[in-house]
């Protein structure tokens, strides 16, 4: 009975037309035939329709079903092919994602290593820099102290009195001038003595004459020697004074140069201090690249891999793919499984925000007092 009712289903839209066509002769028959014949004819209309549908139209339905079946078969084949392509694509995507995920993990660890290496290197550099700077400063201080003491005579920690170079020059100059003056005095006095000796030589007492002449000659010689010594000492004094003044000037110049050099070193130190801080700057940039950029990317890839794998499993379970393809997919999935899984999630530093302006601040723009 169910089959009988079901056989009407495909022709439901045509049922009205069939009944109408079968009922067409009835109005004409009603005028010519007795009433009971007319009733029989009316009752035969649905029967005829039923026979028509069940006995004649089924052949058409079967043929349509056969055609439908063939079409379905082609569609299923196409869908199966499409599913196979989709699952192949998913498998490939899963493989690529797993590979990228592993690469990201590698990048993550490389960033960590770079941070650690650069920090260790900069700490070493900065330690050396501090040590060199301290030594250089001490050296400059010693040199300055030495030169200053030679100029001012203020020897640090000295118990005995020390004289500065200008003081010594002045003292030597004074001493040599005294020597020159003394020699000149001696020469003058000798000359005076010689003159006083000349007077008795002119007296009528001729007995003392030869002795007086000898003494005269001796005094003359002494006066001459004293004069020459005074002249030589005077020349030496001016030479020595000139040399000492030159030395004093050189010391003053060296002092100025050392001071200028000290200023230059300080400028260089300040510049190095600024440059060394860029390690911290770089480290923060790398930290931000690692957390959260790389971490988020890693998580996203892991999710994609999971989704692709789950979809692939569903497609496999639906039976829409060929058996040989399933084997290939399983092999591919097994390869993906071998790729290292994602490491633990890294937590971004709280309050760490990416600066909008990365330019190096200059001068007082970098300082703001509230």
């Amino acid at each position: 009975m169910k089959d009988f009712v079901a056989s009407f289903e495909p022709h439901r839209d045509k049922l009205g037309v069939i009944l109408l066509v079968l009922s067409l002769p009835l109005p004409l028959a009603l005028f010519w035939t007795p009433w009971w014949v007319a009733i029989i004819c009316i009752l035969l209309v649905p029967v005829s329709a039923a026979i028509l549908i069940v006995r004649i139209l089924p052949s058409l339905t079967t043929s349509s079903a056969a055609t439908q079946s063939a079409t379905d078969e082609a569609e299923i084949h196409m869908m199966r092919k499409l599913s196979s392509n989709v699952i192949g694509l998913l498998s490939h995507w899963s493989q690529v994602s797993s590979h990228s995920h592993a690469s990201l993990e590698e990048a993550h660890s490389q960033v960590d290593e770079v941070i650690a290496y650069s920090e260790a290197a900069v700490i070493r550099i900065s330690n050396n820099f501090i040590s060199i700077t301290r030594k250089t400063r001490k050296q400059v201080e010693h040199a300055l102290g030495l030169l200053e003491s030679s100029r001012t005579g203020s020897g640090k920690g000295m118990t005995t009195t020390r004289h500065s170079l200008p003081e010594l020059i002045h003292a030597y100059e004074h001493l040599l001038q005294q020597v020159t003056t003394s020699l000149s005095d001696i020469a003058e006095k000798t000359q005076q003595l010689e003159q006083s000796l000349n007077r008795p030589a002119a007296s009528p007492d001729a007995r003392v004459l030869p002795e007086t002449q000898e003494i005269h000659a001796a005094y003359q010689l002494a006066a001459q020697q004293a004069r020459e010594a005074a002249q030589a000492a005077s020349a030496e004094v001016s030479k020595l004074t000139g040399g000492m003044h030159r030395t004093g000037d050189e010391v003053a110049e060296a002092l100025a140069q050392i001071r200028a050099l000290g200023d230059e070193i300080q400028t260089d130190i300040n510049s190095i201090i600024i440059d060394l801080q860029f390690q911290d700057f770089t480290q923060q940039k790398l930290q931000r690249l690692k957390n959260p950029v790389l971490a988020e990317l890693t998580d996203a890839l892991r999710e994609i891999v999971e989704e692709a794998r789950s979809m692939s499993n569903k497609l496999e379970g639906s039976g829409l793919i060929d058996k040989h393809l399933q084997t290939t997919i399983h092999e591919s999935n097994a390869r993906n499984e071998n790729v290292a899984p994602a490491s633990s999630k890294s937590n971004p530093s709280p309050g760490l925000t990416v600066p909008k302006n990365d330019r190096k601040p200059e001068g007082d723009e970098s300082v703001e007092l509230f």
Partner: protein
Amino acid sequence: MASILIVDDSTTMRQMVNFTLANAGHQVVEAADGNEAVETAKSLHFDLVISDVNMPGMNGIELVRVLRALPDYKFIPMLMLTTESGQEIKQRGREAGATGWIVKPFSPEVLLATLKKVLD
């Protein structure tokens, strides 16, 4: 000469600030993060605190807030030394009680001049 507490998670930064300030004759103590800084500040007295903002654990702004709650540090100048230069975060620092904001990398002359201003 002042007694100064430097707070920064970067060793290099601490070294550079320490070097600059010690050469200027200041007495410097270092702390690697906010928590260590609070402990140090409780045990010693400082005339000035210089802190980074981004640090593990307690960050610089929280540190200023915590230190300002201590009676000894209510009026002590606190400078933030950081790579952050956004107005929003500066405002947060100001609200927490920071005295000033210096953007890294700092110039030693600028740092010393700023110190002189806030200490005077």
